[in-house]
């Protein structure tokens, strides 16, 4: 979703928001309701009913645009509960602010939006409430498998999934036609061959590999079956960034970069948007939130784009990865955990609230109900030549590899990427060597932070 784009716009405002958080805006108003102690005992339906009928104020931090719509629906259903919605404007401001509040021990919201990749970092600091006592485990069947695996670890459920980003490939049919690429490349080998044709016969590059976008790289790793990270929820991490699978990915791109068949411009910059609308790139390997984003960015290319599957590593396979996606997590410090969980569940699974998230706020859904809802999947998009793009990506969601994990310090992994592999991409340097440096930097950081690296 928009998450990633906003996260790239890391501005100096961080320090300010951290200060704001320290000065303690929005303390959660403690109601007399349940969840007062973190007892693991299951909460009964009577407890829930009582909590939802007690005057309570919930503080929610999120950067989903217009989330107030969902809040209104919730407040209509539960009139005793008031929701104080704080728009934190994006990951770059959100996490430093949240971490400062957690460190200060005050001003902590009841519910906070947390991207999937950052869940372990808050599990590690014991900041998230385990949602199993509130019945979260029962929700499993309502979600796409791989999404559920992102929030449920070792018998605990840490958050309610909100949106996801299964990877596909958006491509310019007109440019492909001009280059003589009659059908969208099925495998990465086809893609490389097509890259040559596009470069020779048109003024475009087949695609752009940005050196600043670690999220897309995780997606490529994910799709290639790499398992670069693991975390036991306590002190032990596994870091395997320099494996056969990741090497396969970087070697592939190395070749395309060295032959000047792909460009290496940073993405989500003004120049990049211009490149998209001025035919510089003939395709974009992007998540399910990409189509809407592209539509807003390159309006003048309407009707020329199509959505297709991401090229495969072996012929006949159909495997995808994920890029982005977020959840709503209940904070351990919340005094209103029942209501906080019910809120998170409501906005993401109530049929009206969730459908509107998908069709009005363009968060790509995580529940099977919305992924099958005709109102969502049957939408046709002029921008994509009348294609049912949602239906296409709903299909992709089923093909995402199920076991991708994260480290409890993805901020560092990301910034280290920008100076190792990302930099090598931008400078058209030695990707394999940079991959090794990335691995060693992340390992050194993990050790220095006191983790056991297995």
């Amino acid at each position: 979703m928009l998450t990633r784009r906003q996260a790239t716009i890391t501005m100096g405002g961080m320090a300010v928001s951290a200060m704001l958080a320290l000065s303690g805006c929005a303390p959660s108003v403690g109601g007399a309701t349940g969840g007062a102690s973190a007892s693991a005992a299951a909460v009964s339906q009577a407890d829930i009913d009582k909590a939802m009928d007690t005057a309570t104020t919930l503080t929610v931090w999120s950067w989903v645009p217009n989330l107030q719509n969902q809040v209104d629906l919730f407040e209509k259903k539960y009139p005793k509960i008031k929701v104080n919605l704080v728009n934190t404007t994006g990951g770059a401001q959100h996490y430093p602010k949240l971490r400062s509040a957690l460190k200060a021990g005050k001003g902590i919201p009841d519910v906070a939006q947390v991207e999937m990749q950052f869940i372990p970092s808050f599990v590690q600091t014991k900041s998230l409430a385990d949602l199993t006592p509130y019945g979260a485990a029962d929700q499993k069947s309502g979600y796409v498998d791989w999404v559920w695996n992102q929030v449920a670890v070792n018998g605990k459920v840490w958050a309610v999934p909100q949106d996801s980003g299964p990877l596909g490939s958006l491509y310019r049919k007109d440019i492909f036609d001009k280059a003589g690429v009659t059908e969208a490349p099925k495998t990465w080998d086809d893609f490389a061959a097509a890259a040559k044709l596009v470069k020779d016969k048109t003024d475009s590059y087949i695609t752009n590999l940005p050196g600043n976008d670690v999220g897309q790289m995780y997606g490529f790793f994910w799709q290639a079956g790499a398992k670069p990270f693991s975390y036991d929820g306590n002190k032990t991490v596994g870091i395997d960034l320099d494996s056969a699978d990741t090497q396969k990915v970087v070697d592939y791109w190395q070749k395309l970069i060295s032959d000047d068949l792909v460009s290496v411009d940073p993405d989500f910059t003004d120049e990049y948007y211009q490149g998209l609308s001025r035919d510089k790139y003939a395709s974009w390997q992007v998540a399910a939130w990409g189509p809407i984003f592209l539509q807003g960015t390159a309006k003048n290319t309407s009707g020329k784009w199509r959505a297709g599957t991401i090229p495969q590593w072996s012929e006949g396979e159909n495997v995808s990865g994920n890029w982005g996606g977020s959840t709503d997590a209940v904070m351990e410090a919340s005094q209103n955990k029942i209501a906080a969980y019910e809120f998170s569940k409501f906005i993401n699974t109530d049929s009206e609230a969730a459908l509107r998230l998908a069709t009005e706020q363009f968060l790509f859904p995580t529940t099977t109900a919305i992924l099958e809802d005709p109102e969502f999947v049957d939408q046709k998009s002029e921008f994509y030549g009348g294609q049912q793009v949602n239906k296409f990506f709903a299909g992709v969601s089923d093909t995402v590899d199920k076991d991708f994990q994260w480290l409890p310090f993805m901020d560092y992994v990301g910034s280290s990427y920008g100076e190792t592999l990302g930099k090598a991409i931008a400078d058209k340097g030695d990707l394999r060597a940079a991959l090794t440096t990335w691995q060693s930097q992340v390992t050194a950081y993990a050790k220095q932070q006191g983790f056991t690296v297995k």
Partner: protein
Amino acid sequence: MTALPARRRPGRVRSAQTRMAWILLIPFLVVFVAMFLVPLGYSFYVSLFSSQLVGGTVFAGLGNYARALQDPSFWGGLGRVALFLLVQVPIMLIAATFFALALDSGRVRGGKVVRLLIFLPYAVPSVVATLMWGYLYGRDFGLITQLFQLVGLPSPNLLSSSTILGSTMNIVCWSFIGYNMIILYAALRSIPTELYEAAEIDGAGQFRVAWSVKLPAIRPALLLTVIFSIIGSFQLFNEPNLLANIAPNAVGTDFSPNLYAFNLAFKNQDINYAAAIAFLLGLVIAIISFVVQSATNRKERQA
């Protein structure tokens, strides 16, 4: 002899004056202590600890400082801003002095308008200036690239890791030449006109006047701009931090020591180490400013 005036003034009056002086200083002192000394002391205190994600916070003594002294990122950033200082500051100050002298000579037509135009970039916030230049530098569709293409030359990549420092220098020059020019111009205007008359009688031309009368007279102002520029160079932050969005891989997280401290605190979550880096940087700036100031003072005394 020196004791005489003191004896003449009754002690009571003097102590009353001292008391009044302190009272008048209180508002400043309160703000100074609360907004400067306390945070400074606190960050020094913070820098004496080390915290890990696993294991929490422990007292580390000067461990963070020892680590910083061996940190290639810290030294690399320091080296970069030192290079910045050595190249950018002379260019900026020479240009500012030249403009100030030219305007002061009164031979520039429309001097007031020119003065305003040169000063104008300073009125543009550095954030806006950096974003604006970022667009101009753009690799494919930037104005500079398009100009090069117009005349059929290969366009330089002004946002690559090898050129980004120069591009940053250009932005800072653009922003601050006018600011320094105003300081120097004001100093020039305050030179007593008798000196010019004397020089004229001695038969000195414009250049001779500029060299032998004006420049020596504005020495204190020049020194001030030098010190400001040194501090400004070492504290380089806004420009690289914003350019990092436009040219993400060209500007590392350790591009300047300030940026490094910021990233350590908010990306690596290593606030203690960031505090130590910030403290060391402050120390370096203080030492260099002191050396420059005392060196020029000594020269003045010798002269």
